């Protein structure tokens, strides 16, 4: 860029100020729209409730998530029934462990998987997509070819191989899930960046001598946030679903920790043997989380993308 010019700098500041004011009002509009969406608001409250439950719930637990109730483990079908008196609020699992503590712990893991997995996809995908779209030209086409190629690799394979190669751990699980989910995010972000790149306010900033890096971080990225947040919120249930599939294959996290997917797979196996609570409780939490996230994602999209109204 050419040397800094006070006039240009002022103009750029003005442009920014203008944007900020406009941005805030847009955000307020969006918030109002979201609040008016009953399904989304109800879902938000359910999610908050579930999140609070994972924090407060353990204080009410009589048993830990790994303790075996030796006295009751011999006859789970009769003695493992959910019971408020003996502290097994959600009953016992097949091995005599407290389902209440386990469901709380599993919910925490599943929420973390969803949030962190989506967050990883968000960070990697946004950076990759913005750079690709903003730099453009040959870099763009090479970067997008790479995405095309990676998209042709079946996600199941990537996940299985990564978990097999690197062993199981929380971190690996997030990396594996993030590795397969950032691609679509990158594509969407790139498309948006391309559209934004030639908009008047960017031209104006450029004319004002704002450096390319600053343009990217100050002007492009903030304007992508709407789309990115919507897509990321829709990714959360996808991540949780994907984790449950990994758990089904037995490649999920290690005992004594568990996830909702794992608990459901175990509960589904034994549902014919009169221990339905082993399926019912984790499934209820799981379905509540997934459905709430659907509605929240839809609500965010409607709120942040006024064209649908």
């Amino acid at each position, binding site marked *: 860029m050419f040397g800094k010019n006070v006039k240009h700098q002022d103009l750029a500041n003005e442009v920014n100020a203008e944007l900020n004011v406009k941005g805030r009002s847009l955000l307020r509009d969006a918030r109002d729209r979201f609040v008016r969406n009953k399904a989304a608001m109800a879902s938000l409250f359910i999610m908050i409730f579930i999140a609070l439950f994972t924090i407060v719930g353990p204080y009410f637990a009589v048993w830990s998530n*790994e*303790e*075996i109730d*030796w006295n009751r*483990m*011999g*006859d*789970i*079908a009769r003695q493992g029934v959910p019971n408020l008196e003996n502290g097994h609020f959600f009953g016992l699992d*097949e*091995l*005599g*462990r407290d389902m209440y503590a386990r469901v709380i712990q599993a919910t925490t893991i599943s929420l973390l998987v969803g949030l962190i997995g989506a967050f990883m996809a968000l960070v990697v995908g946004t950076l990759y997509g913005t750079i690709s779209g903003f730099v453009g030209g040959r870099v763009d086409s090479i970067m997008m070819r790479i995405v095309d190629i990676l998209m042709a690799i079946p996600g199941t394979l990537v996940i299985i191989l990564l*978990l*097999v190669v690197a*062993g*199981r751990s929380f971190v690996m699980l997030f990396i594996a899930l993030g590795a397969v989910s950032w691609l679509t995010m990158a594509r969407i972000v790139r498309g948006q960046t391309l559209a934004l790149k030639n908009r008047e306010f960017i031209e104006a900033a450029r004319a004002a001598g704002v450096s390319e890096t600053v343009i990217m971080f100050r002007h492009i990225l903030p304007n992508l946030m709407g789309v990115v947040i919507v897509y990321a919120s829709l990714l959360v249930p996808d991540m949780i679903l994907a984790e449950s599939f990994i758990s089904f294959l*037995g*490649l999920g996290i*290690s*005992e*004594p920790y568990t996830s909702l997917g794992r608990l459901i797979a*175990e509960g589904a*196996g*034994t549902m*014919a*043997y009169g221990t339905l609570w082993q399926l019912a409780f984790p499934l209820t939490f799981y379905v509540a989380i997934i459905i709430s996230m659907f509605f929240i994602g839809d609500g965010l999209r409607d709120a942040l993308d006024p064209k649908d109204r």
Partner: protein
Amino acid sequence: MTSKSLLGALLATTVLATPVFAADKQHPTTGEALAHDQTFTYRVLDEQSSVDPQVVEDVSGSEIVRDLFEGLMNQDADGNLIPGVATGYTTNAEKTVYTFTLRKDAKWSNGDPVTANDFVYAWRRATDPELASPYSWFMEIMSIQNVSEILAGEMPTSELGVRAVDDYTFEVTLSAALPYFAQMTTHATTFPTHQATVEKYGKEWTRPENIVSNGAYVLTEHLPNERSVRERNTMYWNNDATIVDKVVALVINDENVAFTRFQAGELDRTEIPSGQYPRLSEEMPDKVLVAPRLCSYYYNVNLTETGNPALQDVRVRQALSLALDRDIITQNVTAGGQIPAYTFTPGATAGFEVPDSEAAGMTQAERDAKAMALMAEAGYGKDNPLDLSLVYNTSEGHKKIAIAASQMWKQKLGVNVELSNQEWQVFLQTRSNAEYEVARAGWCGDYNEASTFLDLVQSGSGYNDSKYNNPEVDALLAEAKTMDDPTANYTAVEAIIERDVPIIPIYHYTINYMMDTDLGGWPVNNVEQNWYSRDLYKIAE
């Protein structure tokens, strides 16, 4: 010929040749009325590795091979040796040369006679480096002359110590006397194969449309990962005594689904789903079948420097072993009628006397008290807890036992156990490289004799994953190889294992089947569970 027309042809001949078993027929010895439809359907967990006798390496594949092919000797319902293709055998004074006399009426399913040359061909084939049979080690432990050199590629397979004296006399020369050699000829690896067929079709010879076999059944259908079907072989020398016409093995991965299908009447046999034994033995006792097997479930303790230093202390190992409540594990965790184990070798093993174990005689409370005392002596306790890692391969069953064990150690001895499950291939590597502290293990006997277990604690054994090294044990086991009655030595070795705790025995496996009441003739007392479909029958209902 396509498989369909072959199937049709077979069905036609079956009907013509055996009009014997109509609805009102009775079992020749028990007198039970036989069902019209003699089809036996059972569940297998996984697709079999192969049905080639020299290649097969898994249990469900061996079950099929035992039906399709017949070796020199068979086992009866109690596991005793009875004639197969061989009517009998003689040995020389040193017991290093075995001469088998073959029956003259044995035929292949294409009508060719079964001769000693078929065995010579099969045994050479099993040791051929070019076939690279994963079970060629079995030929090696049979101690046949020159087998190690052949496997190493230093000698041609023609140098193997087997010879067809004439068409019906098969002679084996051993490099050292082996008391249980004849027992080993009931193993699938030693079954004959039809040279012309193998050479004509190459590795595709085991396809239903190509296969030629000499057992009571022929393979008529094989849909990988779904089912394999074998049907009566009319050329079999003892075909008249065969009752079951058709045997279907269905691949069902999920034990609960298999059980549902058993309840729906689609299966005659499946496994008891884990944890359901107590309930099922109450609700349908006539369908639950539990019997001892020659298998042990145990934990390896890594005794090398790569392991946990605390485990070098024998008191810690003893305490860990004592604190495991095997009764809870077998009754409440595995809950499949398993037998609590205080010795490595199962009590059901032929010629094995369970030593007077101190631990077995105590109550669990006494064991716990002793374990706590030992731990305290070793300097560990609630204020100085021992940290331990326990690794197992991914499986529901192993997971449950590991969780229970870790909780017992934690609650009684204050040990902090870190559980880690590894996927099978990773697990095997971890264990054989001794990169663990305590690891899950299981072992099934290859033959009905204690050495098939105890050889594992020999310092030179490739399967000694604990890396246990005790010259006294090695000497006792070496001596046992040539003794007429090695029982005393085996008992002594077990006593040393209990003292040194290189491994922690947990339980002895049982077969635990859900078996339809109309299925008769199951060899419950055969501890190796070598069953032959030709001994089974379906009872009319």
